[in-house]
């Protein structure tokens, strides 16, 4: 199924990825090709089939609610493009 550029713009907004005006047509048509591929699934009878999220149907393992990780804040902050006094810096959000 074809995807129009409006849909692509909406998806780009949801995914927070800037798509330039020059490439949006190409992106739309590529996306359309992929969605055409996956549309084959619509023809399959799946009533009563349980969706499968984990290949071996394992369940989430739990552990005791205890602190076991060391504090590595400095090491992680060092990776940030901009940080100050233990905080990550971003452009102002609230006026």
């Amino acid at each position: 199924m074809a995807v129009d550029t409006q849909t692509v713009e909406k998806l780009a907004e949801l995914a927070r990825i800037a798509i330039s005006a020059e490439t949006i047509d190409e992106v739309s048509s590529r996306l359309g090709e992929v969605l055409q591929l996956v549309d084959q699934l619509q023809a399959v009878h799946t009533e009563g089939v349980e969706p499968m999220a984990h290949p071996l149907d394992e369940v989430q393992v739990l552990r005791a609610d205890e602190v076991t990780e060391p504090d590595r804040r400095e090491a992680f902050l060092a990776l940030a493009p901009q940080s100050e006094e233990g905080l990550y810096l971003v452009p102002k959000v609230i006026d």
Partner: protein
Amino acid sequence: MHQLTIAEIVRGLREKQFSSVEITRHLLNRIQQLDGNYNSFITVTGELAQAQAAAADQRLAAGDAPALCGVPIAHKDIFCTSGVRTSCGSKMLDNFTPPYDATVVEKFNSAGAVTLGKTNMDEFAMGSSNETSYYGPVKNPWNTNCVPGGSSGGSAAAVAAQLAPGATATDTGGSIRQPAALTNTTGLKPTYGRVSRWGMIAFASSLDQAGPIARNAEDCAYLLSAMAGHDEKDSTCLNRPVQDYTLNLNDSIAGLKIGVPKEYFGEGLNADTAARVQEALKAFERLGAELVEISLPHTELAVPAYYVIAPAEASANLSRFDGVRYGYRCEDPKDLRDLYMRSRGEGFGDEVQRRILVGTYALSAGYYDAYYNKAQQVRRLIKQDFVQAFEKVDVIMGPTAPNPAFGIGAKSADPVAMYLEDIYTIAANLAGLPGMSLPCGLVNKLPVGLQIIGNYLEEARMLNVAHRYQQVTDWHQQYASPASAV
């Protein structure tokens, strides 16, 4: 020395034919001289390797060293390596130096293995040709105008060019097996959950799995024995005992029932590839195995189901790359939205962006049931096909890829044509089953891979079956005509 297998290196080190420092230096020199032809490494860790080799030599001298002590290997650049850049083949992580080791890396380090470097890969593991890497395409040592396959193209090429005797890799839709097939190497994707994903940059969490690429099944057995096992830090990791995979390699396979799915020999399969695979199946008959025709009726739905599930999971996993805590940040963002939009728009390549958008679509309100939920239902049908087949047969065999290596650029303009490269490998990821590829012949001097799919947690049996074949054939010992060598 670069022609030695891992098993031979293990023996050679213990018999003092050479030291770890010697073989490590030899391979580092070789990488420096030859990798310009292949671009299989993103980062070479020369100093680290020599330090690890020296430490390994001491451990070996003291006696009681683990099997892989002193053995040089390479790691796909998707595994976090503490203090060493880990790029995942992307501009987004070009400046990323992890402060910790992935569990897989830690296990090899504890075993005394030597890290030669980080290998090239398709960006964020999305690809089947190693053409989407920010660091440029990898060239197939068998023909440098051709792709090595992907996404673990760098690991496969490094082993094929004898720059490393073994390498770690990952497989989400075929990314270990398909490059192994295209480069005449042996690669194995374990059962989902057999190997820890901690520190392995996530693409599709219900499909990703780490595994080895090496020259033969025996070497893969050495590597897998070191990689596999429970890890508390990965809650999807299975808590089941790990065996020494080298112990059963020589078991007889007389009476083995091999399922041959009729759907794997239909349209789209290159005729010469089919012929090589049929010859391999006959070799198995001569070893005492019995071929059984089976059907996996939902085979054609594997690629469509995967291209909903994998992008959906990827869109969630890659949402962490936002220019805030690590990785690429755009210049002078004017507000938070701009920070996100441009960091991601500039940091991610086209294929990654495409898949994130597909995934976003599949998970968005109004589409979730029609796409994601539906795909998960189809996924269960695919798994059921295998469960039924394994009631009648012990292993399943067929071609790994529908064609030998193709030219660089030949499929990059057509995403769907590229996706069909994984047509035989994807189902095993969806079902969580282990699979491997091993060399079974050449077509116009390009390698062909035979795929073995095993039942859950039957890696030992698959390796045994592959090893028996490799004892009576020598496809895995062929190498591309070398460029001027050390």
